[in-house]
């Protein structure tokens, strides 16, 4: 892994042609779409993208139109990582046999939280264990949005979805968010990181670092969905910033298991008074509106204490960092 610090300047990135183009059919204010656009900006050469079924896969490939200006493969929902495995195997051997030019090709597997944490977990774990050379990018909008906002294991505690609705007896989802990055780290991966699109430079750098790994790398990107979260489309980037500021979604990277907080989260470690209460994040999101009823206030307390506990644990895990 190279230690070079990439400097992605806005000017350079702004004029780089988009590989995920205009004309896609995502909702107005869709953060996953912005994430995909940014991820594609960070590519460094010949790239093949493979994607799991989901919002971003659908909106960019409505036949006969395509928003993808590179080779792109979709097959099914649970197997983005297995697609990547097949592509990786094919490239390796065909280059060895002289059936394909020897120029390096990066492989990016894209999936939502459904296609990563739930139905996609097996293929992901298998591909990572076998050491295929690919970057897996999870765009996490915390639900199965494309099929109508059903809960996933990435949906946070208390969120109202169509399969974990806030009713008169049950206040939304009762389970906590599955810690996918911990699962990925347990595989012993060379590079695991989290990012949000608001801090786009950080996101681009992490994509590039993931691509540089010769082997599997995993990037978990937080991506608000105004439709599913019943939040303002104009605030999708604001929420991705609030998530960091309230420690709901800290951003960090782990190189060979050694974790380091990224600057926006590091600031909160050094100046804890800047940490915002989770209420500031939950407010304005329709999926959490029921939590502001007096009878559900205990859930907000639960969310706060879970967030604090996870943050404290993360700080401890980062203590072993070299700087």
């Amino acid at each position, binding site marked *: 892994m190279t230690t070079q610090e990439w400097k992605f300047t806005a*000017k350079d990135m*702004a004029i780089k042609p988009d590989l995920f183009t205009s004309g896609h059919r995502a*909702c107005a204010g869709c953060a996953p779409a912005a994430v995909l656009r940014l991820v594609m900006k960070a590519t460094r050469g010949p790239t093949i993208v493979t994607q799991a079924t989901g919002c971003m896969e659908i909106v960019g490939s409505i036949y006969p139109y395509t928003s993808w200006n590179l080779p792109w493969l979709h097959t099914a929902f649970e197997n983005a990582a297995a697609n990547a495995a097949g592509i990786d195997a094919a490239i390796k051997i065909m280059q060895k046999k002289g059936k394909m030019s020897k120029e390096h090709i990066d492989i990016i597997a894209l999936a939502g939280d459904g296609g990563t944490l739930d139905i996609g977990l097996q293929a992901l774990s298998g591909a990572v264990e076998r050491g295929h050379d690919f970057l897996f990018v999870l765009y996490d909008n915390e639900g199965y949005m494309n099929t109508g906002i059903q809960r996933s294991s990435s949906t946070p505690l208390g969120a109202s979805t169509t399969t974990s609705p806030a009713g008169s007896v049950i206040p939304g989802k009762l389970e906590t968010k599955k810690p996918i990055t911990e699962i990925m780290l347990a595989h012993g991966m060379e590079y695991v990181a989290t990012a949000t699109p608001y801090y786009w430079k950080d996101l681009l750098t992490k994509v590039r670092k993931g691509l540089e790994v010769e082997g599997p790398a995993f990037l978990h990107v937080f991506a608000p969905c105004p439709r599913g979260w019943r939040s303002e489309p104009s605030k999708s980037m604001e929420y991705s910033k609030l998530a960091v500021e309230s420690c709901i979604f800290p951003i960090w990277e782990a190189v060979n298991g050694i974790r380091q907080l990224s600057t926006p989260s590091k600031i909160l470690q050094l100046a804890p008074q800047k940490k915002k209460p989770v209420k500031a994040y939950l407010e304005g999101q329709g999926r959490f509106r029921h939590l502001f009823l007096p009878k559900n206030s205990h859930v907000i307390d639960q969310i706060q204490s879970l967030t604090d506990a996870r943050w404290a644990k993360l700080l401890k895990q980062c203590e072993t960092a070299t700087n």
Partner: protein
Amino acid sequence: MSSKDKTWKELGIAAVCYRPSVGFMTGDWKTYMPIRDLEKCTTCLTCVMLCPEDAIRFRPEHGKIEFDLGFCKGCGICANECPTKAITMKLPEDEE
């Protein structure tokens, strides 16, 4: 001929896409449109980077930012994130 009229013999195999999506204008989705105060714009390019549609483009040859209303869906992220509040979202009739 509209794509929808093509027979099974005319369509290529395996549904390989044959039109780039830049041929599909999403601009008519918008309710609000972004209006810019050019005096406040510092060309920080935040709007260019965060627009989910690639509907805001930077033209280095004249150092200007262009809004492509043909694709802009009116989400308002640009207005919300602009550090100098150079962009406001307005209804088209308010601008006439």
